[in-house]
């Protein structure tokens, strides 16, 4: 598999905030009780009865200019194939510099003492599968693929639809996009 630029495209219009993505991730990645790598932001704006809502399934943005990788003193945080930001547990001292640097609060310290986060389920992607959160999602809110491939679903969605990213001002060039 060629190393492209993996991205996730989240269709906020479809998401019902059921959080199946969170549970599927926990099961797939065998996360300890009380820890998760993705989460839901449920925003409601306005005053009764003039309200609008947005649901966003969020996770590590696998930034192209990842501040966490720059911040990591040991090289544990690194950019792997497809631009996926990973942490190598053996190299991580748990210093939390990356957690401070992350604009998205996407990282956490595991009970074992290393920092962890979403991997875009790279272990599945390597086998030609989609990330666990994408495959479970009952509303097909989540799309995953290679942005460098202009024929990919994610690339086409970003051409066809209006989108935004979280904290564009961070300069990190995040790779999780929200369709609005």
């Amino acid at each position: 598999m060629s190393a492209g630029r993996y991205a996730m495209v989240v269709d906020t219009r479809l998401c019902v905030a059921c959080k199946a993505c969170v549970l599927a991730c926990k099961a797939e990645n065998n996360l300890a009780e009380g820890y998760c790598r993705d989460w839901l932001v449920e925003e409601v704006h306005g005053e009764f009865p003039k309200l609008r809502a947005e649901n966003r399934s969020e996770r590590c943005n696998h930034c192209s200019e990842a501040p966490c990788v720059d911040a990591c003193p040991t090289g544990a945080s690194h950019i792997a194939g497809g631009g996926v930001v990973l942490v190598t547990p053996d190299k991580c001292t748990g210093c939390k510099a990356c957690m401070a640097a992350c604009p998205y609060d996407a990282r956490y310290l595991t009970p074992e003492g290393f920092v962890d986060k979403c991997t875009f389920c790279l272990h599945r992607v390597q086998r030609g599968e989609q990330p666990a959160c994408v495959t479970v999602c009952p509303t097909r809110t989540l799309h995953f693929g290679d942005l460098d491939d202009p024929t990919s679903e994610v690339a086409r969605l970003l051409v066809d639809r209006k989108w935004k990213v979280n904290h564009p001002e961070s300069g990190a060039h995040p790779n999780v996009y929200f369709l609005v």
Partner: protein
Amino acid sequence: MDLNRRQFLLTSSAAAGAVGVGSGLTTRFWGLDGDPVHDPATDGDKVIPTFCEMCFWKCGVLAHVKDGTVTKLVGNPDHPLAKGRLCPRGTGGTGLLYDPDRLKKPLIRKGERGEQRFEEVSWEEALDRVAAKLKEVKEKHGAESLALFNHGYGASFFKTLVAAYGSPSVGAPSYAQCRGSRDVAFQLTYGAPVGSPEYLDIENSRVLTLIGSHLGENMHNTQVQEFAAMIEKGGELVVVDPRFSTAAGKARYWLPIKPGTDMALLLAWMHVIVKEGRYNKAFVEANTVGFEQLAAHLADKTPEWAWARTSIAPELIVETARFIAGAAPASLVHPGRHTSWNGDDTQRGRAIAILNALLGSWGAAGGFFLPSKLKVPPTALPPMPKPERKAPDTPRGAVFPFMDEGLAHGLRDASIPGTAEFDIKAWFVYGSNLIQSLPNPEKTIEAIQHLDFFVAVDVLPAEITGWADVVLPECTYLERWDDLAITPWKEPFVSVRQEVVPPMFDSKPGWWIAKELGKRLGLADYFPWESAETMVKARLEAGKYDVAAMLRTGVAGGKRAAVTTEEGATAVYGTPSGKIELFSQQMADAGLAPMPEYTPPEAPAADQFHLLFGRSPVHTFGRTTNNRFLSEIYAENEVWLNTRVAREQGFKTGDKVILVNQDGKKSAAIKVKVTQRIRPDCVYMVHGYGHTDKRLGFAAGRGADDTQLVSRVKIDAAMGGTGMNVNFVRLERAGEAA
């Protein structure tokens, strides 16, 4: 800060190199740097298809099993209800399987009922006790005095047992406390069932109207998938709900209606559609009876008339009526599911059914589809004995002319001596926590005091099992075979539930428990198979299915059938007229309004709120609130309170309150959630919390149970259902003197 961070990076970069040298080179390489990609290795060495029981929907599941442990549950792509995806509850089935609080051994009560003292016994002893007591009840009081209360698919074996024993007294709260009024309404109007799962072609709807359905919070997997597909394709939503539901957040129109007044809105919508000639004339002409009477009935149900009742502005009623009619026939007014609210619920269901008829959505793409069903021969059983007496599930002298299933609350009430034609003397409770699922829990506890015998079969302890004389621990759906599920659908199919892992502890499958009891009661002929596995295989073979393929994929069938009139399917209206009955002569003959009438709801006092309750997407009532995996997402309910009201009354999010209803019934303490998402005259809570049974080690004491506040009901005259949204509450700060 910048400087500090830069300094930190500088000092640490040397260390990175040092550690980098030592990093192990393993066999699996990926990426630019050669570090291995960690594989959590949760894929099973076996993947076993089955179907889910985390709710009643029955989605196809692929269970990954590794070294004898279920590592994860994913959707079966071959299953028409799952389409490869699961809802959060289905994903969290492992949290039930590995719940440390599960019932582990058969229990026999020691001491008085309610003292919660039990002794662990052998299956032999427990089954002998149950059989002896059931025989005794039959001899003393007649077989009909045994009541079966049930919920869930595993009940099939116990329904057989109780029928063979000779009792017709069977009830499930899913009827009179939930969907019954809706089912009866559609049966009366169309002479056809609305189905469960409902026969709704949501994915092709151009407009979907939700009136009292919070789809997306009730995670009926297939419906939610179709709901999203519809939005994706440009379909629009009209949502009628006193609360800004998740669905309301996606709607073109949200109508925050005054609770209990849906009927006025439905009638006014129909008024506009008929008056402006926007109904589907060809469909109405060809398929319905009573249009002239309906038109006359609607004449004075103007948007202005409805405005005063619903609080929805007349212009908005007109605009939404036109919007809904404009998409016909691919305009679906969702029938809802839990509809036992105000006592006129069958009439309200009729109004929804009639509105759909005006749109011509029955049998249309984007409306109600006409399901197709596969055939599998049933297991041949001896004829069932004919009970001498009818189930005593209605009060003495009461008749509910269109009641077509047993009333669970009626069987409870019949256990209080002298209430019904004869007394219920024994309970068999399967998978149903009656304390939380029947209104007026004090009455449930009173009824139990009068019983000669009470046996409960369940996976987890619950308030109800604490009152039983014998508790039989069933294994979970992942540890057992069950009967086949034969689902009428667009792609008709059969699913198999097979044992994924062997039963844990000393729990047993339902089929085994029923068969063993059958043996002891002289009813062995009604269980003419070795096991559910052999029974299922024999049925499949008799139906000429490829058994091996079925066990491998979990599903048979699944081919798209013709299910709309356009595709060549024929709608059959099993009504007396053979047509859709806008005017119901049946109802007129039974002394009920033949066309839906508006009944004004009672109003709360100035310091009271309407008490609304509903679902969280991660839970199925109280059945899952002890599931620690699911509870990582939602562990405790809160009471929603409008922001302005909260400000006026000085409540903040997180404040603990007690809800007190008009009869002085009190809830447990519950946290306030201050939100713009609800009308000022309502409060809302997720149902299924406030467990008091301490054996539910996680759920006990979390949140509050709305059932405690349902001391009043209004009975549906058509089918006997209990309207439960007639209770009003005020808020008291927890800790304040009562």
